[in-house]
């Protein structure tokens, strides 16, 4: 079917096009040689509901999949889907993928679509031979989006469905959306399997030439809050960081990555919000040139590098300029894999930024272009101003990657995940003195979906439940069985229970999955041969860290060293403060209770706070803006957020200390002042964590010595993140 075409007029980009990018009517199409057709998605234009890179529920009827043959300005546009079936008349389509054998007259398209009658996006298959359609049998209550074909007649997808039966899906307390996680289903609709979860979203998977999956993971743990690239096996095990951290990054988020050569990807780099999920084009290499047409040598996050292919395009959220615009996505071409590749892109001109567009009564106008990264110029191919013309792909068959195995299975408990390290002292993050690590603490993460009132306290950290501490053996190994499909992060701890390092990334293990690392964030440039069976930890048997305890039962009954799971501030800590601290630290100004004052220099309004460890509910703030509502002890120890105070332009007068550094008990003023006692393997009040000459134990000195369990509670509070709420005191706990 042919339809009206909207060809871009003369543009600066077109005027500067290089000679290799010849327009229609030429004998050679340059980078498009061998490409008889391209496929792309047309979605009705929209602004809202697309600003945040994680949003996936935007629905506007009228989308269609089209083919342009030849892929030139005067090519014929044919609707592939879904005019052929009236049941799809009000369809919106959010993403699609072509099967490996897709060509002009064979193969399949899998797409995520939603009809007006449905409440969520589902997965659909389109057969190119005859245009027939079918819907895959996914959960109609949940969204299924961003599908990609896997070898072996499978489809990988992202979904809001929950792998853990009966548990709510994670909802990031900051972004608040129901998170997307991973899943796989057979092309015939059978055997849907959902993957182990991250605490925040995972989006935009793509299949790598080696058979692995690359996708964007939102890492949100304390102050960490960014979308990084990770890899995993097609069975959703073996998750590993790929790009964006360890100093490799160039902006906040990386998404819609597509492999152009083995180990080399073109991705969008952008701010998290206000950019309509579009940004600059980045050329990312996960390793060094392997001399064999790829970038797979020493492939690791530490060795990853990037090149910005569109240097003028903002990588933040500011409005883009005229003729600069932003890119929605990019696709490699069969012949365009040089140092400066030609790409099939979707691009919109002008200020591609939610607020600017809405204020002007405009929408972004994404059209299809051929981008020459050597000359940084675009050749227009197709643009319908009423539609977002996005995700252009050459309609050519491609080699299917190999079917690869996932993580090995362990034999200890098929329902649990097995995690551990070969040698915890091997670390690229820190140098740990031999014998300094007693064990590895494993902390489960959860968010507001468990009945927390949209805030965990004055901390940025989300819900925490300590599953336990797995001992480190003489060979540096540790191993633990944990509940499957639950996001956890780990902390190597010393004999005082103090974290030596806070691994700032959530990971999880599937039922029966064995997730062993070489070390503790070991050097990614070294070859690591994982043979956990030879470690002392495995030989002795992994520590069982609540692996069989149901989610809602993973909570503290008492607050001893070994029984503490969550640290509810009002139930656990306040008892300690009331019994041991408040006789002195009670809000009465003086040496024991320093004061500070906040002043708004513009209005002169001020607020004075005096240190107070009582459980009285208090607030702080200026004018009508009153914060906290938590206890005096919470505010005194956690303090106002310093960055927010700076943003507020307030002036502080007096002694304002940050007594607890969330996620870091060791460097917290409170913990140093108390100088906690030995916890492992046995508790010993006579052995202190810090030099007693420099840090005389305060509680003992004033005759209010804490028990070893009480010291440990305070350490857990700080190392967990200083939350007020936990599973134990969640107001909405079932």
């Amino acid at each position: 079917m042919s339809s009206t075409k909207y060809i871009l007029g003369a543009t600066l980009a077109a005027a500067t096009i290089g000679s290799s990018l010849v327009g229609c009517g030429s004998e050679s199409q340059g980078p498009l040689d061998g490409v008889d057709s391209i496929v792309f998605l047309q979605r009705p234009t929209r602004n809202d509901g697309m600003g945040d890179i994680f949003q996936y529920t935007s629905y506007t009827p009228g989308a269609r999949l089209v083919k342009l043959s030849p892929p030139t300005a005067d090519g014929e546009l044919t609707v592939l889907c879904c005019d052929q079936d009236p049941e799809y008349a009000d369809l919106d389509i959010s993403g699609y993928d072509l099967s490996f054998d897709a060509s002009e007259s064979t193969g399949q398209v899998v797409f995520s679509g939603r009809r007006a009658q449905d409440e969520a996006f589902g997965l659909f298959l389109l057969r190119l031979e005859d245009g027939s359609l079918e819907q895959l049998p996914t959960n109609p209550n949940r969204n299924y989006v961003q599908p990609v074909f896997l070898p072996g007649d499978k489809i990988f997808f992202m979904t809001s469905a929950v792998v853990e039966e009966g548990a709510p899906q994670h909802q990031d307390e900051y972004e608040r959306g129901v998170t997307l996680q991973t899943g796989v289903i057979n092309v015939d609709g059978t055997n849907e399997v959902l993957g182990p979860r991250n605490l925040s979203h995972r989006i935009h998977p793509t299949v790598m030439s080696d058979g692995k999956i690359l996708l964007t993971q939102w890492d949100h743990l304390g102050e960490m809050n960014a979308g990084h690239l990770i890899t995993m096996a097609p069975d959703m095990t073996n998750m590993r960081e790929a790009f964006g951290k360890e100093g490799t990054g160039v902006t906040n988020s990386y998404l819609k990555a597509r492999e152009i050569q083995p180990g080399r990807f073109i991705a969008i780099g952008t701010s998290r919000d206000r950019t309509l999920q579009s940004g600059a084009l980045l050329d990312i290499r996960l390793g060094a040139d392997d001399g064999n047409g790829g970038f797979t040598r020493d492939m690791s996050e530490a060795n990853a590098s990037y090149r910005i292919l569109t240097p003028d395009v903002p990588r933040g959220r500011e409005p883009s300029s005229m003729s600069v615009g932003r890119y929605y996505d990019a696709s490699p071409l069969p012949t365009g894999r040089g140092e400066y590749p030609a790409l099939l892109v979707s691009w919109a001109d002008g200020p591609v930024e939610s607020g600017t567009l809405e204020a002007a009564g405009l929408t972004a106008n994404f059209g299809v272009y051929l981008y020459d990264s050597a000359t940084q110029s675009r050749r227009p191919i197709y643009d319908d101003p009423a539609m977002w013309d996005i995700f252009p792909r050459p309609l050519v068959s491609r080699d299917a990657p190999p079917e690869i195995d996932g993580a090995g299975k362990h034999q200890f408990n098929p329902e649990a995940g097995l995690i551990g390290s070969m040698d915890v002292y091997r670390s690229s993050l820190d140098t740990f003195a031999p014998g300094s690590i007693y064990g590895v603490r494993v902390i489960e993460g959860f968010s507001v979906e468990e009945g927390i009132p949209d805030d965990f306290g004055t901390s940025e950290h989300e819900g925490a439940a300590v599953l336990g501490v797995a001992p480190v053996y003489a060979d540096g190994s540790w191993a633990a069985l944990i509940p499957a499909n639950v996001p956890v992060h780990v902390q190597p701890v010393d004999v005082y229970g103090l974290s030596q390092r806070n691994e700032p990334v959530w990971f999880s293990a599937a039922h029966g999955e064995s997730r062993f690392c070489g070390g503790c964030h070991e050097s990614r440039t070294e070859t690591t041969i994982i043979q956990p069976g030879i470690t002392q930890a495995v030989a002795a048997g992994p520590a069982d860290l609540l692996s069989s305890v149901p989610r809602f039962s993973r909570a503290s009954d008492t607050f001893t060293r070994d029984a503490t799971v969550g640290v509810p501030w009002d139930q656990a800590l306040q008892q300690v403060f009331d019994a041991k601290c408040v006789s002195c630290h009670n809000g009465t100004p003086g040496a024991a209770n320093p004061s500070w004052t906040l002043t708004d220099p513009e209005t002169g309004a001020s607020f004075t706070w005096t240190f107070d460890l009582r459980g009285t509910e208090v607030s702080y703030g200026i004018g009508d803006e009153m914060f906290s509502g938590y206890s005096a002890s919470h505010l005194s120890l956690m303090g106002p957020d310093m960055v927010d105070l700076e943003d507020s332009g307030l002036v502080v007068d007096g002694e304002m200390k940050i007594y607890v550094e969330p996620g870091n008990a060791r460097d917290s003023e409170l913990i140093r002042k108390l100088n906690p006692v030995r916890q492992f393997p046995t508790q010993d009040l006579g052995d202190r964590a810090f030099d007693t000459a420099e840090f005389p134990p305060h509680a003992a000195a004033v005759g209010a010595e804490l028990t070893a369990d009480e010291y440990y509670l305070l350490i857990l509070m700080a190392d967990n993140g200083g939350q007020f709420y936990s599973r134990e005191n969640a107001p909405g706990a079932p």
Partner: protein
Amino acid sequence: MSNTKRISTVLAAAACTLLLVGTATAGRGGSAARIQNAINTRSSDAIIAELERAERLICDACIAPVMELLDDDRYEVREAAAWWFARRPVMKRQLAERSVADLAGDDSRLARNAADVLGTFRHPDAIEALAAASSRTDLSGEARAHAVRALGRIGHADANGALAAAMSDADAAVRYEALAAWLDIRRQDGAAPVVALIDDADVRVRAKAAAVAGELREASARVALEAQLASDPDPSVRRNAAWALGRIGDRASRDALEAARSDASSLVRTTARAAISQLR
């Protein structure tokens, strides 16, 4: 440190442990001006983004404009504004009290917005007020529907009674929200109240009832679902029924699912085929 200084000086002295370089932070860089500018654009994405950036900003000048957003005509904007106040527990408590009063009033628009606020706050203390509002026929159907939705957002099993009652509401939108909310209750056990809606007059309600019964594997829904699969005029409903029967997995559904393999709709056939493979 006892002298007057700007916060930035304090910051410089404070230990800052970003454990890895290259991190990006949440909730930073907000200001009253940025919020107001975003409001001026009318873009809900921009407004939400700026509210998130001002997550914990001490900002007296922000109060009035964000308070107005609680009455915005867009749900997502009201939700974000309520979330912003949820970060400020003292104000949250005041707002919760005001919202409970609005729910008890006779202004349906205020009641709708109040329900959204209470749903965002997620505190089970609001269940009683929301439950009462959800059954008040003097309020608009929209207000009742939002009260029901808020019960789902709170997600506490104490709301089950009110949700079951709302499934009998005369307004289909309320019944639909009650079904959705039923699924949002943590540790929800079964879907018996849902079964009666499988042959509801409203097509969206029927489709949702089937989907909820399936997700919760409500065995008592089997016969009704089989009938729905065989005869419902809407393909989405039949498709959901097939999916639900697969989830329930009773081999007695085989004949119904086999017949559905040749359903006229492409929406149904693959689901029926896959559901057969799930029968025990």
